Each structure stands twice: as C-alpha cells, then as structure tokens.
C-alpha cells in the first residue's frame, strides 16, 4: 500500500469538503456546542445554584462533560464518511476512481483519513476552547485550573482517536449496505449507543471515567476497531461496489 496515494485521495476529499456546506457544518457544529455551551452552562448554573457546583461536585461533573467530546468525535465522521463513499457513489464520481490503479486499501485508507483528520482537528480545537472556558468559569470555585489534566489528556489523545476510527470503520460498513446518504446517517446513529451506555454506566457508578477507566474503555474499543477493520475491508471490494452495493 502506498501511503502517498491514500493521502492523495484524502487531499481531494478535503478540497471537496471546502465546498460542501453540510459537511463543513457537521464538522464544526459539535465542537462549537461543546466549547461554548458547556462553559456557558457552568456559568449559568453557578449563578443559579451555588451548591450544585461546589468544589466537591465539580470534578465529577467536568469528567462527565469531557466524555461528550468522545461522543461528538463519533458523530462527525458519520457525515463525512457517508458522503465520501455513498455520496460519491450517488454522484457517480466513484466509478472513474475505481477504474484507476489505486488499490482497495489505498482508497479505503484515503477515505478514512479524510474522515479522521478533520474530526480530530475540530474536536481538539473545540476541546482547547472547552478547557479554557471551563477553567475560566470554575477557577473561582476550585482555586486551580481543572484542565488540562492527565485524565483529559488520555481521553483526548487515546480514547478520542480510537472512537473516531471506530466510527469511520462503522460508516464504511454502513455505506456498503445503503444507497443514500440519509440512510447512511440514519444507520450511523447506532454508533452512539455504546458510548451512551458508557456514559450512563459512569453516571450510575458502574464504571469510573478516571484514568484507569479510560484506558480500559480505550483497550476494549481498540479490539472492536480491529474487528471492524476486517469487516470493513471485506465489505469494500471494488469490483462488487458498483453492482452489489445496494
């Protein structure tokens, strides 16, 4: 596999995304919500009920907020990957691409990079603003800057990429089973379920989203990623795409 060719496919998709408003919105909307809305909620809640945001309660609340970054990171690739595969198939621009000497792996990796990098860039930018905003609103209560910390660092640098890869691979599999972007997005929603389950489990105390908990979750998701990789490469057979993909 030639990485330069995969990068070529990804670079072309980046250029296309610049002209696709719906994809641009899907990339920026969630990081904006997280980075602006959550600090605003803290500020608002702080004024309304000082007890709720006590120095004792705040760390747990902030860890819960942090996990929404992971959920957001699984949402963004859905729109990108479903456009870049199903969308291209509908626009018929996939056909000449499949007639080139690019290998299946190069095309698939290129599409995955095209979904992965904007997502990570958007989420990291959003997370940076989130940290600054949260620190600014909670410093008075805590007496120190809660972010950055090791737990959040591992969440951003380990769990978020693993979750994004999972979402991308899942989108490829979904794309091989549907014939339009809307259906791809509808089925894509199911990717949230395991992450919502993790969030709820943490809220009711079954698991803890501390450093160890995040490493364990990342390990389990990595194993799922490997399994999804094999399923997605099996689903992405170029000589079947134009005839057998529904």
């Amino acid at each position: 596999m030639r990485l330069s060719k995969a990068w070529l496919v990804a670079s072309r998709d980046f250029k296309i995304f610049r002209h696709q408003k719906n994809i641009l919105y899907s990339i920026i909307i969630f990081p904006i919500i997280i980075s602006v809305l959550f600090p605003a909620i803290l500020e608002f809640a702080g004024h309304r009920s000082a007890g709720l945001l006590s120095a004792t309660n705040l760390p747990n609340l902030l860890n819960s907020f942090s996990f929404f970054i992971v959920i957001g990171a699984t949402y963004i690739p859905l729109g990108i990957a479903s456009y870049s595969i199903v969308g291209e198939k509908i626009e018929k621009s996939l056909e000449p691409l499949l007639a080139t000497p690019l290998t299946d792996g190069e095309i698939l990796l290129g599409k995955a990079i095209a979904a992965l990098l904007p997502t990570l860039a958007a989420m990291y930018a959003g997370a940076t603003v989130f940290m600054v905003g949260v620190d600014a609103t909670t410093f008075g209560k805590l007496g120190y800057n809660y972010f950055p910390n090791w737990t959040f660092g591992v969440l951003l640098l380990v769990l978020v990429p693993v979750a994004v890869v999972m979402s991308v691979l899942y989108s490829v599999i979904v794309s091989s089973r549907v014939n339009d972007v809307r259906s791809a997005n509808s089925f894509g929603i199911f990717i949230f379920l395991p992450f919502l389950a993790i969030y709820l489990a943490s809220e009711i105390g079954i698991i803890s989203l501390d450093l160890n908990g995040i490493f364990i979750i990342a390990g389990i998701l990595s194993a799922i990623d490997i399994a999804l990789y094999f399923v997605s490469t099996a689903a992405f057979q170029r000589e079947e795409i134009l005839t057998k993909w529904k």
Partner: protein
Amino acid sequence: MLCCLISKTSGSATIGGYEIGNKEGSLKIRKMIGLVPDNVGLSEHLTAYDNLDFYGKIYDCSDSQRKESIKRFLEMLGLWEKRNDLAGTFSKGMKQKLAIARALIHDPQVLFLDEPTANLDPESAKTVREFILELKKQKKTIFLNTHNLDEAQRICDKIGILNTKLRVVGTPEDLEREVKGKKTIVSLEQVNEKILSALKKLSLKNLTSEANKITFDVSDPDKENWGAVEAIVLAGGHVNTVNVVGSSLEDVYLKLVRESA
C-alpha cells in the same frame, strides 16, 4: 468488466497481455486504460483543473508532464478559460469534454468511451467526434460504446453489435456486405417486359422494378453491374443512372435483433 470495474462472470479477456479478473493483471490494466463513463463521474465540487490534476497524480505523471497535459487538453477542448470553475457549474457538453480530458491525462494506450456524445448538442457532439477521430489518428485503441449507429459507422474501424450477447463483429463494410449486402438501382427512361426478362436470365437476386427504376441485390457491384447494364442496353433500354446503395448499420442491427427475437 474490461475496465476491471466489476467482476467477470464467465469467459476470459486480456488487455495488453494482462488477464481480466486476475488481481495483479487488473492493476496493470487499470494503469494502461482511460475511461469515460456514460455519466462522466466528475467531482462536481472540484475545479476543472483540480479534477484533472488529481487523476494525473494518481497515474504518477510528473509535475511538468501533468501541467503540460492539462493545459494542452483544456485548450484543445476549449475549456482552458474555465479551468478554475467548479465542474458542477459546467454544461453537459463541457463536462463530457472534461471527462474525456481526464481519461487522457496519463496518455493511456486503451480508451473506453461510454456514450461520449449522448445528450450533447450537435456542436459539442461534433467536437467530441472530431476529437475521437484525432485520437484514432494517434493510433490509440478506442472502445466506443454507443447507441448512435451512424456515429459508430463513421468513427469505428471495427464494430460489434450487442443485443444481450455479441451478435456480430466486423468492419462496417463487412457488416454491410455480409449481413445484408448492397443494392444496385438502375434508373431508365422506360422499363418494359423485354428488359426485365433479359435481367431475369442473369439470375439477379431480389430483382424488382418500380416506376422507371430497377433494383437488385449485388455482392460485388463492380462485376455484376456491368453485366446487368449490358443486358439492359442490348434489350433496347436507355440507362440514365446506376447507383449502388449500401445497407446502413441500422439495417444490420435491426436484422440481427429480429433474427434473435
């Protein structure tokens, strides 16, 4: 299947010595072919230049070769001034031309054109046809898939007629002659029984007369017409004109389709 876009169902085929269906062979074939699908398949959110540049890079064309080819093809097809416009803003004809330029960017040995003039206005269709003829002069192998039989007859050296399966393959001349043959139409001042009985003795095929014209089938007009004209003249007939009419590819197609029904 020949473009290695879909799996083969049965049989075998080779392009440039590489076998269709073999994974290694398919990659080699993809390097040596250019494809213009019937739906053009451009990236509508990329500029005309970027569409070509992307494919040039895929085929490992050097920077200078790529830039030179893009400029040459876009100028040749009248799109150079529009190079920075998004392909999605182009008319059908412009998109078709751009798709042809894309297929040629790596100077392929074999070119597959699927309905290259379909849905084009007459002027654009003419430009595309002339461009194909220009490529033909450059000794490229061109597979032209078309429902426009007149276009096939004008452009192609060899024609295959498909109707659920390959019915016949041959040069346009072969098809006209072997499938239906040619007709000779002799226009006379007057047709009479004496002339007709003289011609009947020559055992001409499908001899008919209507008004002042006599029509019969010929397989070799140069030889057969001479005898027919001589018989008419000896029978006292006065010949105004002698025309040889070939059957069109449409006639051939319809005959084959009817036979297969």
